[in-house]
């Protein structure tokens, strides 16, 4: 199983992308399947070993929460842009990571960039912290707690690391 399907997520992504780009016919589905199985095997050696998804359902919940948060993020940033009177209170926040695997950290950093008023600025991999630029924040500890509770904990459960 591990040899035949070294990167299940990548295979799924390749399959979905191929099906999205072409018409929905059985022939295309077969070709997509072959490509989704073959490409990961060919390029496996170039990649870092990927952690497996232990809780696919939680991943789905995570994506839905993320989509919702993106909408909220847009509304909040828009409100801040339009409120001319108020000056935003920006901050650089140092977030101590409890994740160690590169792939979940990448997902976490991307999530932070996509959600309300935060952009991941620099990953200090040597001491396991992530520098975040927040657009408008008073309480930095509250931000850290929120990220840990809302994104990092679910990611830990999904990848079991």
């Amino acid at each position, binding site marked *: 199983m591990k040899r035949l399907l070294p990167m299940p997520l990548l295979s799924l992504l390749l399959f979905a992308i191929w099906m999205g780009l072409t018409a929905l016919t059985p022939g295309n589905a077969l070709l997509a399947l072959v490509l989704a199985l073959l490409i990961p095997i060919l390029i496996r050696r170039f990649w870092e070993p990927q952690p497996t998804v232990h809780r696919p359902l939680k991943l789905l919940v995570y994506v839905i929460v993320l989509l919702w948060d993106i909408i909220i993020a847009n509304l909040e940033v828009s409100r801040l*842009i339009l409120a001319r009177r108020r000056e935003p209170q920006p901050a650089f926040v140092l977030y101590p990571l409890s994740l160690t695997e590169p792939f979940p950290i990448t997902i976490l950093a991307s999530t932070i960039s996509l959600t309300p008023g935060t952009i991941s600025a620099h990953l200090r991999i040597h001491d396991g912290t992530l520098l975040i630029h927040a657009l408008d924040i008073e309480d930095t500890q509250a931000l850290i707690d929120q990220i840990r509770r809302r994104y990092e904990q679910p990611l830990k459960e999904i990848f079991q690391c």
Partner: protein
Amino acid sequence: MTFMPDWLAPWLEGLIAFLLVTGGIFAVIGALGLLRFRDFFQRLHGPAKNSTLGVGCTLLASMLFFWLQTGDHSGRELLITLFLMITTPVSAHLLTMTGMHHRLRRTERTQGEPYELGSERDR
């Protein structure tokens, strides 16, 4: 247009128009952010976030429109959304890192002094 009851079409058209207008408004607000904010790091937030929803709304409208018009339900727009969600954080991250590398000025209000910006206190 045989698979859809007649009363539904105007509502869908209204929805498409609503999505297009909303997407446009969000894109404009994101661009206004460039004028409004004081330093480079703040200005990044506008385009990095608002373009996501702006483009997302427009793509959803496009998908609905072509589905209504030609019965084409390929969902290619969903792929664009996916690519956007993967690439936006990466480009924002790279821009921030470049900005820090050049030690760009930041507003005095900014909390925190990361050593990436040349602060000695955080070593």
